[in-house]
């Protein structure tokens, strides 16, 4: 019975590892696109808040996993790590509130309500012109009768 559970657990770990490797491979081959991971909404400008989110997530997650591997047990996350991430996300929310409150920045369009501007380029269209008329002779003045 114990041998079976060992096989199941190791099978899950191998499956998990293979899945993780597959995700990395797809990102590497650009089948999962991450080039706009820092861009906010429809704008082409990178967001500092998103960068902070990403930075602290990798930092705290990486440190936590490193400590877990080093100690061989789960390590509790301290308040300091949560506060660091909380400050970052709180600022993101406040920043969005300021931007929306002043009306300076347009609200981020959700995928359901997003509209797309379509630019129609002018093309040469065939036009049927009427055939040119032959030149008409000038009207001759009629003689005046008494």
């Amino acid at each position, binding site marked *: 019975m114990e041998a079976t559970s060992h096989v199941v657990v190791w099978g899950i*770990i191998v499956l998990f590892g293979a899945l993780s490797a597959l995700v*990395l491979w797809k990102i590497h081959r650009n089948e999962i696109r*991450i080039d706009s991971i820092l861009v906010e909404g429809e704008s082409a400008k990178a967001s500092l808040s998103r*960068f902070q989110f990403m*930075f602290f997530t990798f930092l705290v997650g*990486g440190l936590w996993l490193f400590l877990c591997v080093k100690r061989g047990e789960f390590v509790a996350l*301290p308040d*300091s790590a949560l506060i660091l991430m909380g*400050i970052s996300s709180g600022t993101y929310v406040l920043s969005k509130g300021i931007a929306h409150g002043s009306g300076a920045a347009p609200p981020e369009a959700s995928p359901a309500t997003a509209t797309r501007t379509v630019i129609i380029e002018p093309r040469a269209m065939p036009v049927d012109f009427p055939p040119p008329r032959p030149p008409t002779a000038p009207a001759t003045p009629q003689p005046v009768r008494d």
Partner: protein
Amino acid sequence: MPGAAQALHIVLATWVAALAALVAFRVVTRRIRVAGLLSDARRRISPERVQLLIATLAVGVLYATTTLRAGAFPETPPGMPALDSAPTLLVAALGGSQGLYLLGKLFRRS
């Protein structure tokens, strides 16, 4: 099953490290768009964004260094947090920097 748990941790840690390396490489080679990270809506370099980026990177590096040296996450002392403890200083530094950023943003919008 301590062996299995250790293996799972190693798989996860390797995956996070590889993902972080991939993202960092793409940020450096500009394959992840970073244009406008330090500029405001008028496309001008914004000082509060620059200081926030520097503060974020500095706090992150200091936090990681403190953790790796001690082999544990820096803990705030029980009771009132001492002002000279590493986590309190880092949190205060990051909080102050974020406050400056928000004030600058508020000032520019009004």
